[in-house]
């Protein structure tokens, strides 16, 4: 089985505090792993480590091509949503359709609600062809309909041989392996 993400004896220090150490994890095709833990336990930092945006204190991380959705929209506020997404992905139509954003394509990003922005960042992940999805608090600001759409996207991605690493303090719907970070 080809691994899409592998942590080996990883330690992370933030602000002088050791958040975790000796952390091993491996995600292959079809794997879904949820990182849980209280506020400040390092869930988001673990996602950013996996993305390569942070360097571990010790240990090794190997990753395949990945896409990340977090609390930063990274969409140009003055552009219509469709064009703002087009900067990042070649074709976002299907993903926007899947997340119920199709009719918002011509609406400027600055007018979108936080839930719609969250859907847009998830659409960017879904429209990428990356095999590994990193989702930081994917349910934040998302309504029930959005959560249902997200779950079906994740199931399709896993069935297509992708992997998902999500960090959330809420219970994510679906069948997830759990990794609990202590505070």
């Amino acid at each position, binding site marked *: 089985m080809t691994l899409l993400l592998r942590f080996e004896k990883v330690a992370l220090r933030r602000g002088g505090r050791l958040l975790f150490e000796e952390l091993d994890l491996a995600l292959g095709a079809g794997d879904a792993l949820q990182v849980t833990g209280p506020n400040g336990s390092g869930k988001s930092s673990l996602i950013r480590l996996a993305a*390569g945006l942070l360097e571990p204190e010790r240990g090794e991380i190997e990753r395949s091509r990945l896409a*990340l959705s977090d609390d930063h929209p990274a969409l*140009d506020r003055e552009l219509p949503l469709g064009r703002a997404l087009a900067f990042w992905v070649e074709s976002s139509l299907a993903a926007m359709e899947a997340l119920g954003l199709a009719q918002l394509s011509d609406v400027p990003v600055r007018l979108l609600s936080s839930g719609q922005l969250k859907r847009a960042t998830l659409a960017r992940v879904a429209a990428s062809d990356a095999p590994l999805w990193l989702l930081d608090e994917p349910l934040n600001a998302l309504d029930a309909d959005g959560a249902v759409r997200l779950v079906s996207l994740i199931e399709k991605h896993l069935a297509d041989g992708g992997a998902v690493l999500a960090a959330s303090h809420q219970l994510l719907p679906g069948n997830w392996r759990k990794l609990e970070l202590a505070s």
Partner: protein
Amino acid sequence: MIGALIVRDIRRGFTGAAWLPIAFFLLVAALVPFAIGPDAPLLGRVGAGVLWIAALTAALLPIERLIEPDRADGVLDQLALHGLAEESVAFAKIMAHWLTFAPLLLVAAVPASALLAMDGNSLLQTEIALAIGTPALAGLAVAVAAVTAGLPRAGSLAGLLLLPLAVPLLIFAIADAYLLEAAASLLLTAGAPFVAAAAIRTART
């Protein structure tokens, strides 16, 4: 991706506040005759220096919108995930900033020189010197913007960092030592992407 980023930053520059530093530049040039009196020979003598001071201070204005909005909004993170090195991001930003700043500045220097009663020859020399020096000003602006991104009162700090580094450009430009100015400009322009990239990486949390 790097081309798309340059195009995007140019579009944001022109739909945003690209005219603001230029208006500021003209305003400073227009203040000088009031400050030292309508003495044409005197104005003509100090004109080149005044244009440079105006250009340097105008270069400070856009600094806070060069890097910080993209850092805070996660754009820099997403660019990294798309495989773009921070050095490439910084290079694209310098290129886009120069293209939105320098041509307008060179055009604005013409009416500004008239306000300062500069003759054609003196204007030509200043235009050449500005053309040589503006890539370095763009590089310095992006590097300083990256170093100060996310800090409180970044704007004032940016001025303190940028202006001393621009002194060599100023000295060589006013002395009409174009080769030396070009050497200083090349050094600053070539070094800036690496400084900016290191700052972007360090600022990541």
